[in-house]
């Protein structure tokens, strides 16, 4: 009895220090991750204080971006054109990618037999593995000429004739403009929206679909009245994650968006900037502290906006998963 006790005590004693070391090590790794995120935000806030203090809300609302002091123009940084470019390209991407992704998700998970659906989904989701700079090369050399010579003249010949909508496609078709940026982004976020939508459609309770079928509904009626309403929140969440990725995407957009104008115009055929492409283009040019500070503030804005959409998406998708858990129990 005493022998046994002492052995076990010795065993725990021997185990204790090594366990403590191990716990400390993995704990340190986790602490590093948290510190990384906190340091991230702190450093960006710290470095942008100069710009925040000098320009305040004008940074978000102003549309003059003058990094160099001249006789008539004082140094001022207003990021509105970049924010505008980001919103326009991301919205174009979302409008183009969501129907494609949703249509594909419905086809592969509801219509196609699994020997066809799985490889098809796999092929589309391979798009996510292609590096962003490869999209940029493809966009610059293949997509831009197509947009300039075919798509944009076509849009001007059709939409351009309609009185108010015509302003959307006014101006000479450059090819390197907000529309092309949006198209490249749409391709890049397509696999994101598709794979999340598939997951969510797969979580629709079988009973709900079978009940609908038993009432004599056709396949499409089951989809539109049982599947899609159930999955709606999650699909919105999937699109939001796509949006978050579109907002943060840099290289591919930088290569096709033109990077030449800080003018806000209603036409999606104007060359422009997004927040991310502005950072990539101007970072190495930032020669004065306040210019640098303004660029870092752009990064901070990007970080906050992308995180908001990211968290929103997680909440929406998580709610569907939770409901599914409840239905099972």
């Amino acid at each position, binding site marked *: 009895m005493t022998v046994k006790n002492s052995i076990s005590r010795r065993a725990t004693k*021997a*185990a204790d220090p090594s*366990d403590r070391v*191990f*716990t400390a090590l*993995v*704990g340190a*790794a*986790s602490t590093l*991750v*948290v510190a990384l*995120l906190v*340091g*991230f935000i702190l*450093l*960006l806030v710290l*470095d942008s204080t100069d710009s925040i203090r000098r320009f305040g809300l004008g940074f978000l609302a102003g549309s003059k971006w003058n990094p160099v002091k001249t006789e008539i123009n004082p140094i001022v940084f207003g990021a509105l054109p970049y924010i505008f470019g980001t919103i326009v390209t991301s919205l174009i991407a979302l409008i183009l990618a969501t*129907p494609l*992704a949703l*249509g*594909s998700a*419905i*086809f*592969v998970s509801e219509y196609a037999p699994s020997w066809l659906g799985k490889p*098809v989904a796999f*092929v*589309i989701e*391979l798009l996510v593995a*292609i*590096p*962003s*700079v*490869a*999209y*940029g*090369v*493809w966009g*610059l*050399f293949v997509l831009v000429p197509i947009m300039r010579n075919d798509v944009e003249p076509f849009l001007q010949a059709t939409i351009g004739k309609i009185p108010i909508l015509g302003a959307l496609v006014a101006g000479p078709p450059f090819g390197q403009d907000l529309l092309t940026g949006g198209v490249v982004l749409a391709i890049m976020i*397509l696999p994101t929206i*598709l794979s999340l939508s598939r997951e969510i459609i797969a979580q629709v309770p079988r009973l709900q679909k079978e009940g609908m079928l038993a009432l004599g509904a*056709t*396949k499409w*009626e089951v989809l539109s009245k049982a599947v899609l309403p159930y999955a709606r929140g999650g699909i919105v969440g999937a699109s939001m994650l796509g949006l978050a*990725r579109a*907002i*943060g995407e*840099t*290289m591919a957009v930088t*290569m096709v968006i033109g990077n030449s104008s800080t003018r806000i115009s209603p036409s999606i055929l104007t060359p422009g900037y997004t927040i*991310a492409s502005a*950072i*990539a283009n101007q*970072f*190495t040019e930032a020669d004065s502290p306040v210019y640098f500070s303004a660029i*870092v503030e752009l*990064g901070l804005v*990007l970080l906050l906006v*992308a*995180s908001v959409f990211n968290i929103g998406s997680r909440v929406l998708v998580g709610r569907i998963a939770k409901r599914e858990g409840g239905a099972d129990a």
Partner: protein
Amino acid sequence: MRKEVEERRFLGRSVRGAVNAAIAIVLTALSVSILFAIVGHIFVNGVGSLNADFFTQIPKPYGETGGGIAPAIAGTIVMLLVAGIIAVPVGIGTAIYITEFGQSRFAEIVRFAIELLAELPSIVVGVFVWALLVRNLTGYSGMAGACALAVIMIPIIARSVEEILKLVPDGLRESALALGTPKWKVVLFVVIPTVLPGILTGVMLSLARAAGETAPLLLTALGNSFFNLDLRRPMAAMPLQIFNYAVSPYDDWHRKAWASTLVLVAIVAILSGAVKFFVRRWKHESN
């Protein structure tokens, strides 16, 4: 009479269903064709410029023919290795903490931090590493580039390893603990070996993703047209080389951009293909 009405209504419903199915098929075909278009273009435009020199020579200035992207290939490999050395222990350690010690409030915070880090825009990672390292400590250097890639890899590794550790049945842990095995031995010698292929998959995936990152390297490694393996100096990388070639005005450089893109996509495909191989072997073994 009534039956006829019913039949006509049913016909209408069927037609509507068929039309919508057709729309779904068309949208799917369009999505699939995008991938083939992009990969096809990259292959067709890139394959012509590939030769032995392309992999072994340094880039030539404009006007001289030939030259290659050897410094960029070497730089990418070196930075990936260093980034891996930093990111793999941190990522796996974090995942172990979350799954094996994960009841605390702190673990929740860690999980949330990983989620946010994983979705950070990569250009912001570049700005962060610039402000943290490049500005005062390292200057534009391969080391800073590797750190930026590590920041991108850590959450990817942590997330995938966490998913995989969750698959290990608790019974396995409990039986090892019941034998009096200390926790660290249980984790390192019982839990981890059962999912080692899965962990390798996660690491490979993160490498594939980091290999293609451009924006953070633009602000950290800067690029270099000469052969350099010194981590303290600016270092070339394939994505940077591709970007510089692509935005240049020269046709010859555009051809090289296509060829480098082909090589980069091939590297990413090989890394991700290795993933598939591991996953298959692992599933095979567990069956």
